[in-house]
């Protein structure tokens, strides 16, 4: 499962850090760091964090890793 935070929208309210401190953290007073990948154990917390974001800046993809139809393309 993956996530990305739109850090243009993010204003450092840090609600996600309170709710999922293993996935999100603050670097200094305002800069947000996040783990782009998380596992089942964090799912519930990430869901709460994303819902709580006051500027709705967190995009989460709960699907299993998509299987890419990668073509080796050795022409």
């Amino acid at each position: 499962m993956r996530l990305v935070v739109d850090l243009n929208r993010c204003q450092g309210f840090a609600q996600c850090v309170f709710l999922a401190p293993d996935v999100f953290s603050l670097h200094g007073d305002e800069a947000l760091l996040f783990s782009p990948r998380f596992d089942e154990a964090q799912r519930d917390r990430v869901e709460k964090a994303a819902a709580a974001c006051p500027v709705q800046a967190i995009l989460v993809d709960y699907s299993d890793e998509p299987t890419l139809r990668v073509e080796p393309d050795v022409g």
Partner: protein
Amino acid sequence: MTPGTITAQITDYANRADPYPLYAELRKTPVRREDDGTYVVSTYEEVRSLANDPRLSNDTRNRPPGHARPGQPAEETGLPPSFIFTDPPVHDRLRDTINRPFGPPHSPRFLDGLRGELAKVVTELLDAFEGKDQVDIVEDFSYPLPVTAICKVLGVPREDEPRFHVWADALASSLDPQSGGGDESQEKAQRARQDMGAYLTDLIETKRRHPGPGILSALAPDMTPADLEATAVLLLVAGHETTVNAITNTTLTLLRHPDVLQRFLQDPGLAVPLIEEVLRYEPPVQFVPWTTALADIDVAGTTIPKGSPVWLMLAAANRDPQRFADPDRFDPDRKDNEHLGFYTGIHYCFGAPLARIELHVAVPELFRRVTFSQLLEDPPPYRANAVLRGPRHLPVAIEGLTA
């Protein structure tokens, strides 16, 4: 609507149970001037934009004489205004300091660490429902949990809590523009503040000598006693009055929407979006009446002149059809729910994460264990406060309790 009576109507108790038709009326004029020069702002974009506008002050000393100055204690109490009634840089310094033992970056796991204890309190409260066919959700559930939570956060001994009950009520009603205008209420609030202050002075002194758990101990070395006292008073009041409303409003709203309740019972995961939707639909803080324009501000075709008191109507903005489709519908599936239930900008609710943790702990468990029969009074009786709006009691009939 008669001009000049808008703020009176907002605070009129007759509109407490259902203020939303009035808010819908308000939104027809997004920025409305009262005869006394107060501006009432009720649409989403305008409220949001003003809440983020550096020309708007939370320090009510910027108001011209003759206007109410909530948050400014009388000289004799000696306590400074709490941080919600200050502007940067004072605000930022205070809030950063208080945040140090409370949240990230320094203490990201402090609140998370309280989940277990709060879950235990929820279990005890619900165990006490055993054998009853009727309970008052406010007295029996919504009120005791936040009290315990805020006492744990601060490090106030639980056995002292009943004393806070009285003080907190008096202080909260002083935030209400209607009763807050009355001398008697202000005096009561002032007295409550002094009494609580005296208690806290002792407590803080004890914490200085014998540091214990909770943020008061952590803050004692870094803050002046007066600032710490003012902060503790604010957090206690906020902790008592707002989360109670949030939990009660969630319960009331679910019982009023049996279709959503049915889904929730089958899918407890619905709790997360559902709680956010309640914060939009029935926000615990309905409006912020203590801001002041520091300069002329053009908004939605109106100029708010420098010095004007400004009321930001969060609950009206949360139902703005320009922002939320079908806004009067309670819809937990709503996408992009960027509600203003906890305000926005630098004064975003300090206790929001605590309130959310309490809601996440309390709501699913309440509905998992309790089989509700019906609301016994709808609408329920509301408390007088128009800002911190919520039912005084929520009597419900229950059919049973699961372990």
